[in-house]
Each structure stands twice: as C-alpha cells, then as structure tokens.
C-alpha cells in the first residue's frame, strides 16, 4: 500500500517585500515521519513553519498539507495542526486552565478532561489556576505544549520546542511531542546532532534556499555544521 504524503511541497517560494525568504523548496514527508529543518538565523525556517500552519500564504509553488492544497483548502487542515513555536500563543492574564478552555472552544471540543490529562502529563496541574504572568518561561512552555496538543493534531510543527525547558521538563514532554507520539512532525532546531537522532528527513536551509535535503540515516553530521558557516 502506498504511504500517503502528509506534506508535499513543489517549488515553494515566499517573499517579504523584495527579500526572498524561501526559494523553490521541494520535498515530501510521509505520514508519521519527522522532518528536521536546520539553518542559520534568517534561513527561512520559521517562515516554512508558518506557511505549513496556514498562517502565511505562499507566493509561488504548490503546498499540500494532510492531502489539502494550501492556501485554498486551509480551512480543511486548520484544527489538524499543532504549532509550538517561540511564542506560547497564550494569554498572560489567564490561567493555564482558562487558556486551554478558550482553545478547546475554538476547536469545538469539550476539552476539560483532555486539558486535565495534558496538564498532569506535563506536571502543571497544581499551578494551572495561576495567571501565566506569574509562571516561569519553562512552565509557560509546558502549558503551550498542552495547548498545541489539546485537539490531538495529526501534524506537529515544532520551532525549538525544548528551548525553555530544563532536562526534567524535556523528559516530561518527550512522550507528547517526541517520535513516540506517532505524529507527523516538522522540527526546527539549531542542534544538528540532537535532531538527527529523531528525524527521518533533514532539510538544511541557507537564506531561503535548500542546501541539504537527505534522509537522516545517510547524512554526515559535518554537512549540517557547514550550514552555519
């Protein structure tokens, strides 16, 4: 049986004004696989994630996410994507439970049980009624993990998801957002050695252009270090 592609990009291009943020990116990621995206600052990694999340429109090429062409069929995939980036996408004045209740409503879920399950999984259930502005960045990031997973997304878009987490918290979120979660994942990282261990496919970008695109198993880590020179 043919494996369905969760992500299919052909000649994807995106500009900000005159500046080319992504140029002619072509790749395919099968359902359940993990794509690691590496590159120096300004390489276009976050732009790629926002395009896949339907938050940006492509200026050229074709994008298919979970079998739907973007941007025209964006409505069909919103709600099937979980985005975890630098910003937690949470309101500082609200508690974790209140934030998750808002997102549950946005996704049409009666999400109380699911929210409690996730809060317990990231060991945040005891601080879940405090406003987020009173919590540390690591704690807020744990709540953001709950927010990204609340609707049980098929595709996870992760932009340095462990950036604010200590080792213990990283271990807590690993079953939720790691390979064991079984979801299709796109991970943006600055840690070539770490990301090779959990990726099936590696995309290296420099100034929006593809420099490396290969299976993780066949890739020399030295080639990834070269991206940053």
């Amino acid at each position: 049986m043919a494996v369905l592609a969760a992500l299919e990009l052909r000649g994807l291009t995106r500009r900000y004004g005159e500046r080319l943020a992504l140029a002619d990116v072509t790749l395919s990621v099968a359902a359940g696989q993990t794509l690691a995206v590496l590159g120096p600052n300004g390489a276009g990694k976050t732009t790629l994630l926002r395009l896949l999340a339907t938050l940006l429109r492509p200026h050229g090429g074709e994008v298919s996410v979970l079998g739907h062409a973007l941007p025209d069929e964006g409505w069909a995939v919103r709600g099937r994507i979980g985005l975890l980036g630098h910003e937690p996408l949470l309101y500082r004045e609200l508690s974790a439970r209140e934030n998750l209740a808002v997102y549950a409503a946005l996704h049409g879920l009666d999400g109380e049980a699911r929210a409690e399950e996730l809060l317990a999984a990231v060991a945040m259930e005891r601080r879940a009624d405090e406003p987020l502005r009173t919590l540390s960045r690591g704690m807020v990031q744990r709540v953001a993990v709950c927010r990204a997973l609340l609707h049980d997304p098929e595709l996870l878009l992760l932009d340095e998801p462990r950036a604010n987490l200590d080792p213990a918290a990283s271990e807590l979120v690993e079953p939720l957002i790691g390979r064991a979660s079984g979801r299709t994942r796109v991970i943006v990282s600055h840690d070539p050695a770490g990301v090779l261990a959990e990726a099936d496919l590696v995309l290296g970008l420099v100034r929006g252009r593809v420099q490396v695109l290969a299976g993780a198993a066949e890739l020399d880590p030295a080639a990834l270090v070269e991206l940053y020179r």
Partner: protein
Amino acid sequence: MSSTTRTMAAPRTRVVLAALLRKELRVELRSFEAVPAMSLFSVTTFVLFHFALQRNALSGDLASGVLWVTLLFAAMLGINRLFVADAEQGGFDGFLLSPADRSVLLYSKALTLLAYLLVLEVVAVPAFALLLLGSALWPALPGLLVVLALGDLGIVVIGTLVGALAVRTSVRDLLGPMISLPLLVPVLLCAARATSPVLGAVGAGALPLRWLVTLALYDLVFGLITFAVFDFLLED
C-alpha cells in the same frame, strides 16, 4: 490519528463567541488597560472643559459637541487596545490556527468594544451632567440614550474595522486614530446634531429624525463593510 482524510467540523459559533467574550472580560478585568483609561480620560476632559470654558452650564450645540468629542476621543483609547493582547500574546495566531469561523472574532471584538463604551458612558454621562450640563439630565435621558445607542454602534463597527487593520502594523498607536477619526466624523456630526435639541437650555426637545436616520444608515453601511472585509484583514 495519522489518517490524511480526517476532517474537522467547525465549532459552534455560539460556543466560540461565549468563550472569546469570557476571555476578553477576564483579560480586561485583570489588566485594567482599557476601560479605566477611557473613563478617567472622559472625566478629566469634562473637568478641563469646565474650567477652560469658564461656564457651569452648557446647553444645545455646545453641550452636545463637548459630550460627543469627549466620548469619541475616550473611545479611541479603547479602540487602540482592542486587539493588543491578541497581537502581543499570539492570540491572533492561535485563533487563525483553529477551525473557528473568522467572523466570530469580529463579533467578539465588536461586543467587547460595545461593553467598553457602555461602561464609559455610565461614568461619563453623569460626570458630564454634574460638571457641565445646564438642564437636568433625567428629562433628556431617554432621547440621549437613543442617540448614544446609534453613536456607539457607529464607533463599534468603525473601531473594530480600524483596530483589526492597524494592530498588525508597527505604528498601530498612530495608524488607529489616523484612520478612524476621519471615518468617525460623520458619526460625530450626526450624533452631535441629534443630541443638541435633547440638551436644550429650556428642557429636552424632540429628537431630530433626519440625523438619527442618517446615523443609522452610516452605521449600517460600515457594519456591512466591516463584515465583508474582516476575514480579509486577518489573512496574511
């Protein structure tokens, strides 16, 4: 979970709207960023007018002009803050990532701004009557409430439209008033003209239907424009 054919049913509008309104209310009640500033601005402005005009009692055109200009500038403070929490804390992206109908955000923001204006007027109108109004407030109140309702509607539709337009720019504090003030001139004009006879020196006169109808039509036209373009404003 990894099936690529799964589709999502759109969440119910009423449930999403209730959740967004609860969120707006909680954020404002805990941050006190918009409504206290609007109320304080209006009371301070009336005090300034009280001393600057060196008059204890205004009526007619002057009274309605002072009232509406003050309400309009106070409303600008609320309009500028309307989308800020969403833009700065990522609520916009969170909303856009969900399958919720985009129009629900418009409804929630419009109702939030309306609530801000109602609280503002509960503070500002008695303060205006106390500091500046020559005649008694009670006889004028029924007519004034009608004009306030239509004026608020105009401020709400234009404020929500402009707030959404300005918030994703780096100069939102400047752009908001620059766009909304010209658009609100007809609202101000109609509302002030309609209010003038109500605040007459010899007691409340009849409401001028011509200005009320013009104001209602302006509200309707901008309501339709806002409804039509709001989704587009949220897009990249």
